[in-house]
């Protein structure tokens, strides 16, 4: 059992949890993830680590209350416990002095990006950050990101704050030379970023969170086509060369269990698990 030390609502339906997990906190590095199981009947949900404090023995992660498990998770409070957390999983990010790095983060992945930006900055990079969300209400960590980045751009899908969409990056990329781009966020955003950086040949690393079950290489559901080769998101990733990823296939694979996921969330909201009280 893993005790929740702190919860914070960062934006509507976006929550941060700090959990006591000293063994994971001691080992975690930027780019890695954990598998969270809420109770005995729960699914194994991969979540990117957004922070760790070895001294305090805690890790933090941020999630969006979209499915049954994340909604259930959202109801937990400080002092409650999570049944099982496994980690850290996946390969840590490559952090060194690349020169000038463009970091693009969207949605809940703004949280782990903060960790990434800090590490890149400490390694001596010049960091230009873009953070985006659907609407301005869903933006969070703006001040923190601003403080850590050499420059910060904000974008929203509807233009309610900052730039409308990511097309403004065309000009940025045309004017400045970047040595690396790091992107974390929804798959459609990652695809867009890769399209934008491709003409300028900026090496672009994307963090993929495909559907996973075990998260340690056993099931293969997280397989991704990277440059014509089959790679597993969990053990070969989660970071890949974005210019080689088959995003269209990835998007289709992300939707494989959408009807089941919706059913599960709906039944739960209606107050039953669907078992008919058995």
């Amino acid at each position, binding site marked *: 059992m893993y005790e929740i030390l702190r919860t914070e609502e960062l934006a509507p339906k976006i929550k941060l949890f700090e959990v006591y997990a000293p063994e994971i906190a001691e080992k975690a590095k930027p780019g890695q993830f954990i598998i969270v199981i809420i109770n005995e*009947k729960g699914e194994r949900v991969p979540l990117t680590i957004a922070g760790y404090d070895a001294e305090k023995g805690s890790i933090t992660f941020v999630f969006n209350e979209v499915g049954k498990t994340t909604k259930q998770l959202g109801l937990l409070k400080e002092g409650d416990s999570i049944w*099982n957390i*496994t980690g850290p999983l996946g390969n840590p990010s490559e952090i060194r002095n690349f020169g000038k790095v463009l970091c693009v983060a969207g949605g809940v992945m703004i949280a782990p990006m903060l960790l990434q930006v800090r590490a890149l900055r400490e390694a001596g990079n010049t960091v230009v950050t873009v953070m985006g969300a659907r609407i301005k209400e869903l933006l969070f960590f703006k001040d923190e990101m601003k403080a850590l980045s050499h420059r910060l751009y904000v974008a929203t899908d509807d233009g309610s704050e900052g730039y409308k969409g990511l097309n403004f990056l065309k000009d940025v990329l045309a004017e400045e030379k970047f040595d690396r781009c790091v992107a974390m966020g929804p798959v459609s955003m990652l695809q867009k970023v890769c399209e934008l950086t491709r003409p300028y040949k900026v090496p672009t690393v994307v963090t993929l969170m495909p559907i996973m*079950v075990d998260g340690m290489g056993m099931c293969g559901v997280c*397989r991704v086509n990277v440059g014509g080769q089959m790679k597993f998101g969990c053990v070969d990733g989660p970071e890949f060369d974005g210019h080689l990823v088959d995003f269209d296939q990835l998007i289709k694979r992300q939707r494989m269990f959408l009807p089941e996921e919706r*059913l599960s969330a709906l039944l739960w909201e209606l107050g039953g698990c*669907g078992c008919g009280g058995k």
Partner: protein
Amino acid sequence: MVVAESKPQPKVKKKAVPIPKQPPEVRKHNFNEVALGYTEEQALEEASRCLQCPQPQCVKGCPVEIDIPAFIKLLREGKYEEGIKKIKEKNSLPAICGRVCPQEEQCQKYCVLGKVGDPVSIGRLERFLADWERARGFTIPERAPPTGKKVAIIGAGPAGLTAAADLAKLGHEVVIFEALHLPGGVLVYGIPEFRLPKSIVQAEVDYIRKLGVELKLGYLIGRTYTIPELLKERGFDAVFIGTGAGLPQFLGVPGENLGGIYSANEFLIRVNLMKSYAFPEYDTPIRIGKHVVVIGGGNVAMDSARSALRLGAEQVCIVYRRSREEMPARKEEIENAEEEGIICKFLAAPTRFIGDEKGWVKQMECIQMELGPPDESGRRRPVPVKGSEFLMDTDTVIIAIGRTPNPIIQRTTEGLAVTKWGTIVADENGKTSLEGVYAGGDIVTGEATVISAMGAGKRAARAIHEYLMSKK
């Protein structure tokens, strides 16, 4: 003069007592155990068939060297408690072995009765005693006095559990690190409920816990801790690696990443470990279409096919590239599958998968095979017949063509010798290239059986004990 009366020779009972089973029509709609186990009368009757050979051949075939005639004799005399004790001298997981061991290839293969009729059903008798004991509650054997030595076991599968039990009995402090959230390894994620109920695995694991073994769940060694850290920083004196062969193999043909195509590992992990058959009560979903195709001919293929049927598939077809004779699955399981209505298509192999506009598989193209001369495995090699491609309609494909070792330990343990297949190099006692590090089971041999992994766990436990006691 007294004429010696000739003693009548006992008649050899050629036929084994059949094990009661759920009828196929019923069982194909549920996940309950198929074979129901002997009643006391049936067990006594079957035990009475044993000839009690002075030089028993059956023991030769047992990877953990159970004294088979002795336990059968005790059973026959109604001494069940002593009978199960006799088994447990060598085997800590009898309820599991009685169910999933391929006895026909091991102990029963050597049974003398097999020459004139059916061999004694040793596995079913082992199961009877184990089930009898479980129903009554376990007696915990005495442990040797504490040695002060600490052993880390990596992986709570058959090899790890066996090694842990033996080392705990010898007085060592044992901690098992299991990467998944439940103990049992392949016994919980791989073998389905209808062949091995999870409550039985749970009970056997509880027995091992009662021996004083500590179980840590959700610890992926190589990530949470590495082996050098366990030895140098965490106070362990020795390590046993029993991480199994848990990585799925794929075919490498076009269209393999379409929706509806599962590795057998994914499919079985969802169904067994995550209990998707009870979705949405359990959170992990599974989707089964109408026409399920399973690729492969081993026990995992049979387990996948029979699970798919129970999840409501209209038709389940196993596609295997060789013929029935070469199928590696247990004969009993092939029969069970066919009784349930599963179709086997032999001498065919997939060449590509064709999807619909949503990226879901709708057809599979296969090529006909013929058998050529034997290959290195001794089985006849399948050779494609030119121009014999044909299409099969399918909406769910399960690829069950074998599993390979998980590489995380090998990648994170410097100095650990590994073969080109990714298995760990170890001698027959499990000793690896690193001092104090032992390995056994599928991680050393590649995918094999539960009992051979247990045998390896046993031998390694013995070697670890010797190593620890000789070390100052």
